[in-house]
């Protein structure tokens, strides 16, 4: 029998006209270093928002121009940590109200992070029940369309 791993051969390497990952979305114009610094700056801003218990403001800050694409892993990690701090410190009764105040853009990015969190069980202080609680409330407000956008978007956070 022939090599059973033939399905794993990357046939695109022989195709001059292959469609590459980088053509599927617009690359972040920012420098990775700059993205990292912005993520750190947002972490500080979020802490002060949380101190004023302004959860909606904290979420908007944390999810603004979220890092995506390759080479910004550290910034992505910091943003996820920042976000988890907010999610974990919100009372479950407040979630609905907070989600409604977010802009549609922010809602879409929040959904991406909820899925990112659910894809990393046991990482940091991720709690499945917290994420699911937010997921339920966010879907009620933004609809299943918000989930569809998370799944189609190649600008992965």
């Amino acid at each position, binding site marked *: 029998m022939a090599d059973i791993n033939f399905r794993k051969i990357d046939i695109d390497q022989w195709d001059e006209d292959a469609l590459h990952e980088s053509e*599927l*979305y617009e690359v972040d114009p920012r420098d990775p270093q700059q993205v990292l610094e912005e993520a750190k700056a947002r972490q500080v801003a979020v802490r002060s928002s949380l101190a004023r218990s302004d959860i909606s403001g904290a979420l908007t800050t944390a999810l603004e121009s979220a890092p995506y694409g390759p080479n910004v892993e550290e910034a992505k990690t910091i943003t996820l940590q920042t976000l988890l701090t907010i999610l974990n410190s919100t009372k479950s009764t407040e979630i609905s109200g907070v989600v409604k105040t977010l802009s549609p853009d922010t809602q879409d990015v929040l959904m991406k992070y909820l899925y990112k969190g659910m894809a990393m069980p046991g990482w940091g202080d991720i709690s499945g029940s917290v994420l699911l609680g937010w997921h339920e409330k966010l879907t009620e407000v933004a*609809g*299943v369309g918000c989930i569809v956008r998370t799944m*189609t978007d190649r*600008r992965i956070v």
Partner: protein
Amino acid sequence: MAPEVYALSQNPITCHAFNADRSQVAVSFNNNDAQILERRGSEWATTETLAEHDKLITSIDWAPNSNRIVTASQDRNAYVWEQKQDPETGKLVWKPTLVLLRINRAATYVRWSPKEDKFAVASGARAIAICSFDAENNWWVAKQLKKPIRATVLSIDWHPNNVLLAAGSADRKARVFSAYIKEVDERPSPTVWGSKLPFNTVCGEYNSPSGGWVHAVGFSPSGDVLAFASHDSTISIVYPGGPSIYTVRLPSLPLVSLAWTSEYSVVAAGHDCRPLVFSGSDQGWQESGTLDDASSSKAASSGFGGPGRLKSNAFATFQNADSRGQSSGNVADTKPNTVHQNTITSVRPYDAANGEVSRVSTSGVDGNLVIWDANAISALTGRLGGAQLR
């Protein structure tokens, strides 16, 4: 006026195209054949089967003035069908002419140009074949639009000037091309899309907002505005003069087909099983309701929870069985509460009055063909994404 519903088949309807006076319709029931159906009272009866393709038919279009049908298929061919007298019986029958598309992947979508002297075939070969009739050799020849398409082209729409062509493709972009054929077209007058238009000029390129495949494109009746719907559950309206793009994010599942009904409104439908109406102007666009009000008010009051409206009653049945041990509560009522019972695959203008489309036709995976009054818009209150869920 209640929508007219015709259950044509148990199988999905891939696509449909009416003739000029709407007495006949060409449909494909998800197979290699196209059927010509004739209206007999409130029924549709098959009068002829167009069997020439070797693989699934993907798209059909019927030219209203020249009374010709064009079919596109996964067998990489397109046929132009014309009604000719059969030499033996003397009856009028549809005769096919093969079109040399020169594509090496499936043909996905076909549309006649407004003057009916050309048609465009979208394909999986990252190309659009623009076909025109070569009278000298008595056949249809194709010229391909290739650059800069990077993936399968899923839909196309002609500009009213017979030259510009919009295309939506799986590389998550909607584009506007010039499909100017020197032998066929007169030099077009300048439009908002540009003035010098040699073949394959890219007059516009627009990304879908969150990177979804562009399923549907359409020029407004004037041709000055472009709408496209993509798989990220959004519909975008492009004003090239602006340059501004208005995007409406839907709380529901993605749209796959759209039709302009006037310069200020679009009917679009897809995986959510009901036609939605969007309206606006160069000041902004929003969802203004749905044409499907038949029984959906029941949905809001039923109060069942579940992931999405589509399966909410079926979901509730299982949920009851799980949590309360009830096995037969509402078993009979597991149907979606929309007129179409599955994804709508095609929306087309049906009837016009006072320069606006007054009725639209839709066909879907449920095998139904439905004709809607385009002005019977009911509000979506209580049925937006949030309310559907609880």
